[in-house]
């Protein structure tokens, strides 16, 4: 029996409530509020209480997908990354870096946003970076 309680932060809105993930034998089984957290002081809303449910959803993507002739096929990471890299490279060569846009996400971490915009600016070479702060 392995049972862990991992402190984390709710990813459902900008409030940033402290949550505790309940992990049993490597599976996320529930969410509790962090009772001593400065933001939420032990409370959560209906979304926060059910934070683990979307993580465990059977609808989650479990593999990268590549569309061939209008249908998705499961691919390995190496294949999928290569397909994407080839497309970006050829489009940048043909139309220039400003023909590519990158939408970063208000739902991923700071580190990932940092890398995503770094990817756009340093790898592609464009400032066409935006996210849904307006929405």
């Amino acid at each position, binding site marked *: 029996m392995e049972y862990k309680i991992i402190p984390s932060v709710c990813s459902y809105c900008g409030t940033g409530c402290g949550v505790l993930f309940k992990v049993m034998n490597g599976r996320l089984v529930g969410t509790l509020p962090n*009772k001593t957290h400065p933001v939420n002081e032990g409370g959560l809303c209906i979304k926060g209480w059910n934070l683990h449910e979307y993580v465990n959803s059977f609808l989650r993507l479990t593999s990268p997908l590549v569309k061939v002739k209008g249908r998705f096929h499961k691919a390995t990471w190496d294949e999928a990354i290569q397909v994407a890299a080839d497309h970006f490279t050829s489009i940048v060569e043909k139309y220039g870096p400003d023909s590519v846009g990158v939408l970063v996400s208000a739902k991923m971490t700071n580190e990932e946003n940092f890398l995503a915009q770094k990817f756009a600016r340093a790898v592609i070479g464009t400032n066409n970076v935006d996210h849904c702060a307006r929405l």
Partner: protein
Amino acid sequence: MREQIRSWLESGEMDAFLGFKEVEGHPIPHLFSKANLAELEGLIVNAPRYPLETLVAEMLQSQPGMKLGVLGDETTRRALNVLSIWNQVSPESVRVIDPDQFAPEEKGARKVFRVSEPGPVKLERGIDNRLGVDAIQALDGDDRVRRWMYEFQKCIKCYGCRNICPVCFCKECSLEHQDLISTGTVLTEVPIFHLVRAVHMAGRCIDCGMCEQACPADIPLRLLYRKVNSIVMELFDYENGLSSDQPPLSVLGEKVVLELKPIH
């Protein structure tokens, strides 16, 4: 206390012990086991109450027959009794370790959860969470209903009171029954949402107070359920967590001892 738990874990008398560990200044529930005995040094007892009983039930359902220790007190024992009456845990699998049984130098002071001072508006329109059942009963009926409805209206429908409750375990919950309580609006139906929950607390609530602590709107739920407990005590002579029978509203009973209430 640490030594005692260490020896239990080492001897196999206990497969694991559920207590608290300090993580970056926060007491976080933690499962200590033989595999990580060194972690016992970080065991702390001064923590706000978490529903450890629920974790215990989850673990035992996943691995029946496991022998568990859990940091707790009288309330924990009562919660486990209720769960065992409802066949959620087998009592012989769990041992409650009360830090009060040990010498004071071995344990930290139990931190009482912050009770916020009610503001003047709450005193005027709502209900002071610190009040007792009698103080509410001293109010006249109209005033009582107005105050309760004020409190219930603040509900943001997080279901936190139910989710954190150590004795709430039903897979299907009446609060989510769409024919009973309408869904889809943040102002839940007042007062049925809270009264349905109160009805379900009859014969169960062990007065741990976690519902109220989890309530983002500070509704005096503990007070409401205390009244439920006292009704159950007065009418049925049943004390949740101490009586070992099925709760009175779940069984028919052998005879009728109650009298009808007259109209006037």
